[in-house]
């Protein structure tokens, strides 16, 4: 695998605000240790996650930033602003004193990007900013991360963000699952807790995480009631409802609706390490795209997971083999994470009965196929998680061979990025898996193809030639400045054309977005050197156009 900074001694990992993100970084952390056994790894997290970090293997030190207090200080205004400023000054000084040689920031937030520049660590990965405050994304893998989460491009990505994150840190070797430690005292606590449960069934212990982080991802309590009734009344299951105290307002109506001694509420009774112990003791977790989902695969418990609304299974699905992912098929999904939804129709694409049936099936063991006609692939795709030959996470559709018109693009891009960014040799697979299943899809595919790519190629050619001319002008000291200006304007115009083609043909979005990021990262003050960097970017774009067509065809 291609690597920018293979050797690391003292690493800072910036992963501040979400538990899920922290867990998703565990293969990267473990991989770094595998590749650099003497390396010290420090993570920077929000204060509330500090304790959890001590349960994650391979972390040597934890630095916490108290964002809540900082925001409260700012809200006090006046002296509060100075308090916050002084706190941050002290915080930055502390980090600087630790002399890190490598920092990885996979959060796209502006403040972490600014922090990276403030720290002045020599080798950087992920989001950073330059001295003038402009955003910079270090490494192409991190640019791919940014490209993939860009909403219009999401459907064209099949690389799990865990892998993209890992590759951004130049980590090749890695465990094929997330990691978290479960301590005996937490196990003991959960055992005692469950002893209080008045279960009358003696079947499998299933944890259900009903609460979701966003309102539009919240499957309705009435669905959960029906689903859990089927588990406890028809399959002898013991169901434990996990969650936070806050989520009790979702859970309580479910418990009342099911009204069974075989439903036990653990929500509000467990902290994060105790929840990990509970998940480890259970046989399956049924959930949405949540923090507990990542925790479950980290303790080795399989999950059946619904990817509703903005959630996208390829992107953030459960990172281990043999999990079930349900992705509703709907024109608007996966939707924009930053937009509210007042009529979440995608929720109706998964029925409680189907979910219960899949749960029971998965409790019986891992499976790689489903009976013919099992679920309408026009409403929901049921995937199984697996790892490809290069160790990258992937999803295999079980109720269809052809999940959507995006499938071929996803595969082509996957091959392109693994080849271009990772240096993994790609062999074109047989197209059997990508056979359209409906007339409409055939029409869509025939008409869409990789339209527009020739235009990108052509503009890239023209730009490349223009850069060559520019380089000549730079070398020629007698060249008029106006000419240089004209060339610069021309290149600006060509760049704009490339970007606009990407907007016009959505399937070219990832390609052109990567180009834009590459242009943003051009740095230096020597004109010729800058032109050389530009030349290389246009060459790369041209190469990628060629490869993309090849992988697609």
């Amino acid at each position, binding site marked *: 695998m291609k690597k920018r900074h293979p050797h690391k001694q003292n690493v800072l990992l910036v992963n501040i605000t979400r538990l899920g993100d922290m867990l998703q970084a565990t293969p990267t952390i473990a991989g770094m240790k595998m590749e650099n056994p003497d390396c010290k790894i420090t993570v920077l997290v929000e204060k509330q996650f500090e304790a959890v970090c001590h349960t994650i293997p391979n972390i040597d030190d934890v630095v916490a930033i108290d964002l809540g207090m900082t925001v409260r200080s700012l809200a006090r205004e006046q002296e509060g602003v100075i308090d916050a*400023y002084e706190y941050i000054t002290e915080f930055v000084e502390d980090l600087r004193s630790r002399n890190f040689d490598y920092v990885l920031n996979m959060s796209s937030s*502006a403040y972490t990007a600014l922090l990276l520049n403030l720290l002045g660590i020599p080798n950087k990965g992920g989001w950073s900013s330059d001295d*003038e*405050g402009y955003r910079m994304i270090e490494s192409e893998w991190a640019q791919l991360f940014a490209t993939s989460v860009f909403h219009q491009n999401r459907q064209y990505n099949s690389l799990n963000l865990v892998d993209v994150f890992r590759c951004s840190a130049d980590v090749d070797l890695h465990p094929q699952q997330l990691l978290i430690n479960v301590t005996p005292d937490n196990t003991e606590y959960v055992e005692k807790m469950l002893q209080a449960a008045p279960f009358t069934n003696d079947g499998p212990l299933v944890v259900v995480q009903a609460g979701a982080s966003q309102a539009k991802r919240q499957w309705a309590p009435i669905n959960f009631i029906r689903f859990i009734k089927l588990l406890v009344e028809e399959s002898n299951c013991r169901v434990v409802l996990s969650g936070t105290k806050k989520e009790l307002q979702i859970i309580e109506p479910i418990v009342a609706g099911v009204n069974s001694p075989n439903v036990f509420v653990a929500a509000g009774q467990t902290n994060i390490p105790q929840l990990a112990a509970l998940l480890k003791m259970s046989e399956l977790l049924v959930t949405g795209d949540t923090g507990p989902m990542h925790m479950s695969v980290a303790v080795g418990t399989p999950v059946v997971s619904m990817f509703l609304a903005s959630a996208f299974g390829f992107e953030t699905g459960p990172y281990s083999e043999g999990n079930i992912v349900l992705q509703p098929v709907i024109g608007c999904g996966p939707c924009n994470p930053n937009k*509210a939804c007042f009529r979440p129709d995608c929720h109706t694409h998964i029925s409680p009965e189907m979910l219960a049936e899949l749960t029971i099936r998965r409790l019986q063991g891992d499976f790689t196929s489903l009976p013919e006609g099992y679920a309408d692939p026009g409403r929901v795709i049921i995937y199984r998680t697996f790892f490809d030959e290069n160790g990258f996470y992937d999803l295999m559709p079980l109720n269809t061979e052809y999940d959507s018109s995006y499938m071929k693009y996803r595969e082509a891009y996957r091959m392109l990025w693994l080849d271009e960014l990772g240096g993994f040799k790609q062999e074109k697979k047989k197209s059997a898996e990508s056979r359209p299943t409906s007339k409409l899809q055939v029409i869509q595919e025939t008409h869409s193809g990789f339209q527009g790519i020739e235009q990108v190629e052509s503009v890239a050619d023209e730009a490349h030639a223009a850069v060559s001319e520019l380089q000549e002008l730079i070398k020629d000291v007698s060249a008029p400045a106006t000419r240089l200006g004209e060339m610069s304007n021309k290149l600006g115009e060509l760049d704009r054309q490339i970007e606009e083609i990407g907007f016009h043909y959505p399937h070219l979005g990832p390609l052109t977005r990567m180009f834009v990021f590459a242009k943003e990262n051009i740095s230096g003050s020597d004109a010729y050197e800058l032109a050389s960097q530009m030349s290389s970017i246009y060459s790369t774009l041209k190469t990628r156009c060629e490869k993309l067509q090849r992988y697609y065809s």
Partner: protein
Amino acid sequence: MGSDNQKISERMRADWDRRVSHDYRFWMSDGYEDDHSMWASGARDYAIACSGIADTKHKTYLEVGCGVGRLLRSASKDYEKVYGIDISQEALKHAERFLASEKNVELLAGDGLSLKPLEDGSIDVVLSFAALTSTPVIVFAGYLREIHRVLASDGILRLQVYTGTEQKVSAEDTLHLRCYTEENLSKAFELCGFELQWNRELVLPFEVSSKEFNIEARMISLRKVSDAISASTKEIADTLIPGGEGETTIDVSGCELEYWMALQYAQELAERGDTSRARETLEYALTHHKSTTIDVRDVMDRIIDTIERKEQEGGSTAAPSAPTRRGELFERNLRALSDTFPEVAAQVSRTEPQSVEVKESEEGVVLFAEGQCLDHPTKPLSAARRWAKSALIKDDVERVCVYGLAGGYHIEALFELTSTPISVIEPRQDVFEKALWCCDLTAILPRLQGLTIGNFKRDEVGAGSELLLRPQTVTLSPELAQEVKSVYYGAKGISSLHPSITVLGPISGGTLPITGYTARSLTDLQQRVRAIDMSPFAGGYNALEGYVADEMRQNFMRGKLTEALSDLVLEMANDKPMDILICMAQAPITIETLTELRKRGVITVLWFVEDYLRFHTWKYMAPYYDFIFTIQKTDCINAIKSAGCSEVHYLPTACDPGIHLPMELSEEEKQRWGSPLSFVGAGYHNRQQTFASLSDLPFKIWGTEWPECKPFDRMVQEKGRRLAPEEYVKIFNATDVNINLHSSTERDGVDPYGDFLNPRTFELASCGAFQLVDERTYLPDVFEAGKELVTFNSRNDLVEKAMYYLEHPLERETIARAGRERALRDHTYTKRMEEMLSVIYSSKYEHIKRRQDQSPWKKMLKRAEPHAELLERCEIAFKRGEEPKLDPLVSDIVSGEGKLSETEQKLLFLYHIRKQMIRMRHEESGK
């Protein structure tokens, strides 16, 4: 309750009868040396208390607690009918004797609780000075109700009170001063149906306030605004002192104070040599106050010793210095003066002035002018030393300027305390000359850095100076004191105060551009300024007539819109700090908003740049402004003062050299905007009358409201549209002779009584454009006719001079150049704003400073001190008038404009943290 009040009333009467019988001057006046001093002090206090009340000739006046009539005598000269009421029968007996010749004065024996027999609404002005200050709170509250009852609608109450730390005084105490908090007083006034007009510190020639005890003497002006009061006397009293006054624990509350005061007085009388009165006073103290707990045996012994010593010496007051000795003293002083200040010495007359009296004291002679004692009457040097100590000269002061020389005792005392250079302003030539005759100034004069008599030099009280005002001199010469204060506080305020100033413009009209000039000039003076541009609302405002046909209804709707815009101003005050609001004439603001802003401590200012005779809004708005600046002088100022604003000052319009400037025009521009003769302005009656006869001249008219008929159809340019300032500046520049005829809606041509100057006068001059302007009363004060501009007094004069100057371009050029120089030197908006702020700061310096010291910025700036760049950012945001929070600190950080400093990065870091956290919260809540 009723019988309790009755007891209080009886006690008040008994206490005051006793005191008056002992010595009415001592207990009821500060001028207690003799009756002459008492009447002088009464005249002084009356002038202070009733300042600004005009048109009194046909009005009725009442003084509550008139005592022996100390102030009534002065009032009787002003009012048609004067009532005085007092609870003390003894005091009234004296008053009857003193005021027997004043036929319009009627004295009433009060019951200490009400104003019976006065009828409801029968009085126009009520005053209570140094009277209700010593009454129990329940009595004070009852009188507030009663005063409201007897006052006519819109009647005025002038009240002397003490504010600051609330005093715990027994309810039966009739001597101790009651001190209320400003907040409680305001609430009580509101309950009683009064509206605050102004609230000022009371400054007398002696100390009436005590910083040590946080007691400040105040004069308050109130206006009756509602006819009914719902609150009871008890509720008003509870509002004044929420905890209520304490129960008395001794037989005669306040006796210790009375005892102590009597002893002090006895000592003073003894030292003065008035031994018989000293013995009487000592006896008074001993006879009436046996129950006191103070051990004053030492004091008693000292008084008795002094009395005996003085009796042995013969008890006579020291005779004035012999004239021969005075002559020698004058010569010695004059020599010292000539050595140090020859130019001052040259102005000194060799005749001793008789307008200033001299009395001896044991510490030297004391000067008196107009009944006003200019130093302490008995111990001038000791008192001067106490004053000097309290004058608090700061270490970082470059020099001290003292207003008032008098006998020079306080200057001597200052020299004992400090080596800081001292200069002196003595406003009265006669006082100064008398001092040369009677006081030994030879030690002081050579040490003074500056001395000016009857005037002052601006740099003496400029930046770096500490101004010390002698109250006695301020009382004697208040006008010069005001000028000195304006310059001093202006310089000090502009450099050290940073109030947040909001300039509120009108919706439309000629004042609109002045709003911008004003705001820009304040910014040039490094003030924190925000201009509120109301012109975007003009479209809707003017469109109303398209929706409603009836003019009254249109005006009603315009009023509604004004109310909405006024509320908008209030919202903006909630949004960003506001310390001073400068409203331009016709700004959309209501009485309610002004009242609310004043409650919040905002200083309200109106710059009324309109003819007060033509626009009358000041008549009902005046009481709601702390300051009104006008473009007209005496009559206008008096009229607005009578309408209820006490601070009214003349401030003409000006020019903005950034806009009104000479410019090079292209041939095309000259063609479009130029003409041999031009006029820019609206088509008022007198202009139409005058210019109709100029149709045979090469004359272009620009502006709105001109008739479309002949002969104007060929003279008026571009369909009489409204012009932007940048456009009319081009016209000024492109025209050979600019005619400036001030508007009149009544006259046919030049208004023979026209006084104020329109902005065009200054703007034309600033552009270096030649102008022919109609004669105006105020014009000679600002421009020299014939040298800096040319005037005309009639239509014929205009034509004659226009023709002459068209033929003499070099003369035109010389005059225009001189006009521009004068405009830039004396008549810029920056100059005007300096003047405006000087006036505001001269009386509101402490108010603004207190607000600033208490403002959250103060603490924030202090905390930011260890971080130089952060401090600088805070200061910039502060000066911009922003709130003390993060956003203004980051608002001007721009990515891509060069390398970000570490401080900028940290601030952006904080900014984005907050943004991210808010975003995450929204995500969680599904927004």
